[in-house]
């Protein structure tokens, strides 16, 4: 069986207007339908810019110099508007504040807004809104003004709005930065469930322990370049990871210091389950 590639990026180069350095430099990769890809890298590495290039904000909103090719769900980003792209790919922005439209008065209407724009019928809409309100623990706040939510509740709303739309590809840019521990765990579980249902996931994260546990593959970005794109075990086992400003999961860090490896694979543990197995004396 041939697996469908929902994202194909070929030699992508991009420079913001009035800047001299490439924010994205010769990036090529592809992602299978239903894969969960984590993106890691230090601040200013180019993670958010890559997300913007997948949804078409680069080059349609952010102008600048653009080269190469990005194809999402069979559609070339360069040749389609941001609005058209939204039918194929949704994004949860790094700062939830930017996500809230301010056009609507309540949390419920805020989620409905995105669905109305897709032209969804009423019955399906109500069903999906109820589902995401419950999933993100927002049911009690459905009649609240979005700007009267706590920071974490606002971030939950931003995620709910995109999950409700259920596009082919969902991009999440540090979506759990303001969530409580169980809230982040729930988001990772929900996103994993979506990917099992066939939704392709691209998620930028600083929580390496969670990426190691949930992502199928991890991409390491540094100074606009793709350094590596591999399984969490292989990527986080790289001895030179720190050179790119990335710390692996804490389990891997201690295993590296204590030189504890899986003897058959020669790799360090990256999840708590692997660590428990290798660290029991």
């Amino acid at each position, binding site marked *: 069986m041939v697996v469908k590639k929902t994202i194909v990026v070929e030699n992508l180069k991009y420079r913001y207007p009035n800047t001299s350095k490439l924010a994205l430099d010769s990036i090529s990769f592809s992602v299978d339908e239903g894969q969960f890809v984590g993106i890691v890298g*230090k*601040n200013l590495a180019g993670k958010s810019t890559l997300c913007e290039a997948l949804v078409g904000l680069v080059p349609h909103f952010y102008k600048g110099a653009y080269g190469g090719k990005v194809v999402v769900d069979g559609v070339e980003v360069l040749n389609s508007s941001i609005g058209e792209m939204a039918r194929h790919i949704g994004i949860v922005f790094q700062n939830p504040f930017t996500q809230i439209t301010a056009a609507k008065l309540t949390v419920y209407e805020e989620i409905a807004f995105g669905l109305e724009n897709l032209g969804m019928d009423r019955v399906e809409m109500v069903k999906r809104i109820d589902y995401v309100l419950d999933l993100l623990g927002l049911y009690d706040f459905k009649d609240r003004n979005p700007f009267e939510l706590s920071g974490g509740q606002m971030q939950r709303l931003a995620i709910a709005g995109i999950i409700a739309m259920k596009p082919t590809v969902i991009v999440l840019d540090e979506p759990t930065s303001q969530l*409580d521990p169980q809230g982040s765990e729930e988001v990772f579980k929900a996103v994993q469930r979506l990917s099992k249902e066939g939704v392709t996931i691209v998620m930028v994260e600083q929580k390496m322990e969670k990426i190691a546990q949930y992502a199928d593959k991890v991409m390491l970005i540094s100074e606009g370049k793709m350094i590596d794109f591999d399984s969490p075990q292989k990527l986080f086992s790289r001895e030179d990871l720190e050179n790119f400003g990335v710390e692996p999961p804490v389990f891997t*860090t201690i295993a590296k*210091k204590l030189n504890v490896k899986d003897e058959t694979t020669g790799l360090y543990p990256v999840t708590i389950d692997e660590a428990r197995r290798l660290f029991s004396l």
Partner: protein
Amino acid sequence: MNLVDVKNVSFAYSENNFVLQNISFSLQKGSVAIIGQNGSGKTTLVKLLKGLLKPKVGDVFIKGINTKDTTAAKLAKTVGLVFQNPNDQIFKNKVLDEVMFGPLNIGQSVDEARENALRALEIVSLTEKSQENPYDLSLSERKLISIASILSMNTDIVIFDEPTIAQDCWGKTRVKDIVRLLVSAGKLVITITHDMDFVGECFERVIVLNKGKLLLDGSAKDVFSQEDVLSAAYLEPPYITQLCHQLHYDEVFLSPESFISYYESHRQKKETNDAKH
């Protein structure tokens, strides 16, 4: 005298919808983390400490002065608060002006303010951005600028509302260093965070809020040993502590370093024992 006394405080944004209920605690200099579920009332609580909100019931005292009897402007000399969202805090067009605003506002001379602002920018390693517009900077940099804007005021009480948001491991290390620096300078550092590993590594005392109520208040070790209570409050211990539990260790470790030295000494013991047999 305590730096902070919170006495039987309740608060509601709208009539009778209490988001904080009967909270009491006192704080001295040192480090304290406030943790809790989204919406549990953490940000509301620190806004009460800063005098931006006033209790509906009960009282907040800062160095013995009731926040109801003073102004937010007067409290600014004692209490600095770094907001959860830097966009709520930053309003100047130049980084240096932004970081100088606080010190000028509490009555420092221009020279003094500039000196303090430059030192604060150095602490967050953003000296070279001092002439730029904060809105041209990334979220992680804006967050560090909002931290510098409070450090420059040199207040006895420094409050961080989720300082590690958007920070990579370098930025997190920076924030950890800043917390330690302030504690060693004899300040009270209060930090709201969802990063339990950060709490385990940097904070002596931990206050847990759950649905507007104070659930736990104790040393980091005590609080993080109560996995069941934490779980009921939608929280979890640091990863290292979880690993210790899963390995059935008797001791609870809060930082990678303490785990490593424990494991190393036990591995050695085991190797010597194995060699004997």
